[in-house]
């Protein structure tokens, strides 16, 4: 195990790590997660996108319209400023990217494993935080809201689709999320590949 940790990455795998680092830079420019909403009155749908540092509508007016609909059930207004996580998420991503570049200087398998651990932690904490965020929005409703339905909460699904009153909300990773997931897969592949290489070296 220790041997593996300190094993120098192959040239190919170093390039792949560099690729992962550059790949991750893209996450600054595309949304990570997307929630789409459809209802009979919204045949064209409404959408919300979560970026590394902001929340936007799928069109310039969608977020405004989602908030307009939400005000009936007393949900707080969704605005980027109300989500402090968005303030430090860019730094977390920067940390991951820098990690990839440092690996180029210290090309050890252990660094790739560290990358996997980092990504998994970021992913799990991120998902938990997202769930918590959804929970708070869906449950902390204004008691003076025009529409109050006993026992009804409006927490969107973490992953998948859910029907809430007349609205179907679907939540899926967007391109940025897919990049994060594929980065993880790539890193796992690199470690697996290094392990296989080590074995063949031994033989």
């Amino acid at each position, binding site marked *: 195990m220790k041997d593996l940790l300190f094993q120098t990455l192959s040239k190919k795998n170093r390039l792949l790590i560099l690729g992962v680092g550059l790949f991750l830079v893209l996450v600054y420019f595309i949304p990570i997660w997307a929630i789409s909403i459809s209802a009979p009155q919204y045949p*064209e749908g409404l959408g919300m996108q979560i970026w590394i540092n902001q929340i936007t509508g799928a069109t*310039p*007016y969608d977020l*405004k*319209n989602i908030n*307009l609909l939400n005000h*009936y059930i007393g949900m707080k207004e969704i605005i980027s400023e109300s989500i402090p996580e968005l303030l430090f998420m860019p730094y977390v991503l920067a940390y991951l990217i820098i990690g990839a570049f440092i690996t180029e200087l210290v090309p050890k398998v252990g660094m790739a494993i560290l990358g996997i651990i980092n990504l998994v932690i970021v992913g799990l904490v991120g998902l938990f935080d997202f769930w918590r965020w959804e929970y708070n929005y869906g449950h902390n409703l204004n008691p003076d809201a*025009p*529409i109050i339905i006993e026992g009804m909460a409006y927490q969107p699904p973490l992953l998948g689709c859910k029907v809430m009153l007349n609205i179907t909300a679907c939540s899926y990773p967007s391109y940025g999320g897919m990049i994060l997931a594929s980065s993880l897969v790539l890193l796992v592949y690199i470690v697996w590949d290094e392990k296989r290489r080590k074995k063949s070296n031994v033989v």
Partner: protein
Amino acid sequence: MLKKSNIIVVTLGIALFAFLPNCKKGAATATLASDAASRVYVAPGEKDEVYAFLSGGFSGQMSVYGIPSARLFKIIPVFSVFPENGYGFDEETKDMLKTTHGYVPWDDSHHVEASMTDGKQDGRWMFLNANNTPRLARIDLKSFETKEILEIPNTAGNHASPFATENTEYLMAATRFSVPVPQSNVSIDSFSKGGFKGTVTMVKVDKNTGRLSIELQVLVPGFDYDLSHCGKKKSHDWCFFSSYNSEQAHKMLEVGASKKDKDFILAFNWVRAKECKDQGKTYNFGGEYVNNFKEENKPAVSTKLSGVKMLNPKDCPGMMYYMPTPKSPHGTDVDSTGEYIVGGGKLASVIPVHSFSKMIEVKDKKEHHSTEIEGIPVLKYESTLAGEVQKPCLGPLHTEFDGQGYAYTSCFVSSEVVKWKLGTWEVVQHLPAYYSVGHLSIVGGSSTEPYGKYLIAMNKITKDRYLPVGMELPQSAQLYDISSGKAELLSDFPTVGEPHYSQMIPAKLIMDKTAKLFPLEENKHPYATKSENDARIVKLGNTTHIYMTAIRSHFKPDIIEARTGETLYFHVTNLEQDYDIPHGFAIGGAPNMTNLLIMPGETRTFKWVALKPGIYPFYCTDFCSALHQEMQQYIRVSP
């Protein structure tokens, strides 16, 4: 059904049957193809293939239908007030109806013209004439709203209008009723002595903005100029105007204006006219007129203008020629190639067709002139004639073209549409019309590239076609499929007002370009309120400006205090940025003002005078959300 239509025909006199050797009468041929219903059926949620823009006749509006379903989508207010959305009432649009005669909230609109680029419909604007108080309007097809109205001076009865040149360089507008120009109190007898005049007006259309302006007017002999169409391709430089009453009768025109065997189609070279203007051959002439322009999401600006450049035909040789045309021509239509000019001699027994190339060939050869009227050479009938459609029908009026070498002519008296072939002048089909058809329209039929699939006939009478609804029955349009060799009647549908003419445009040219909302950040209305935080009440002496916002489902401010005698301006901005979410605004018992319908991101103003102490509710009139009924508040008026 069969019986009644036979009665109608019989009442026209049996002698007239002689003109119709091949024509089966009336409803007898109304065998609907069994699949016609499925061909006009547009399944729920599906879209129509074509937009039809119909003039509103004496309603002064324009209506928008889907074809083939014939569903009415919208009425666009143009020349008449419209209580549904406050057009002509509110502070933003009331100036649209200003004229030199003051505020004129009604008109009679006959002809719809589509903007064109290179002779093809471009889906940018529609133009509409006002016949009664001569005006011309531009409707923007991005918002389906009237953006501009231009009054035409020195004219009466703006009927031959607004017909566009091939690239919409100009719109033509000509006098239906000749009058003294300039207006004066003269004996009506002097009409017969040449005391009355007509004018042809060239209205310039700005290529990019669509803004309208008068380029020049041509003073023409005092006939009644009825309709127009402009040339295409080789005849690009020319527009053609039909005329009647070349007799210059001034009483009992029914008889007096129907004496001569031939009246005229006036061929007008507008490129030459512009040339003469540039050479300084025009002179300054009076004439007050008004231009009303409504910039997007701003109050209309009404500008008084005065004077035009006037041109006399004798000062500009080569500009105008008269082509004799039997008998009291109504329509004058140019085919898609630009070669044939078809006259609709409403009392003639033939459909005369002039050849543009022949006209060009003979126009300046003296031996082909019969005479000259006030500087305009009269060409000999035979010299420009391409052919005549013999005994086509009774009362041919208007002709449109399918781009496949066929022409369709509406016939008012025999109540039918005849299909005939250009070049051979043979009638190939008679299509009954129910009843008394005026204009007809083919999709793109007046452009160089007809889309050709559908034809509608616009009928004046609908006796026995629909359930009776009192004495005034609806007018109707009749839809035919003309895509195959034999045209087939698909359906008929009642229409708003009396549609005179229409332009039909393939839906794909327009549907994706229409605006969904006014972006709030671009709202430049002087009284806009872009956020609820800015909603406020500003008192200036006895006038109060209420900067109000509307959003689902409340107004802000919601309680208004006023004193008797105070004038209140409610400047309501709809804060929504969602497609199809307008809010309405009405105040109980408000005199002189109906309703506002405010589009998302738009600001409109409701003027209200607090006359009597009391509590006055105001509310949203457009069902905007589940809490629409709660979108109501109060004005308190104290002594």
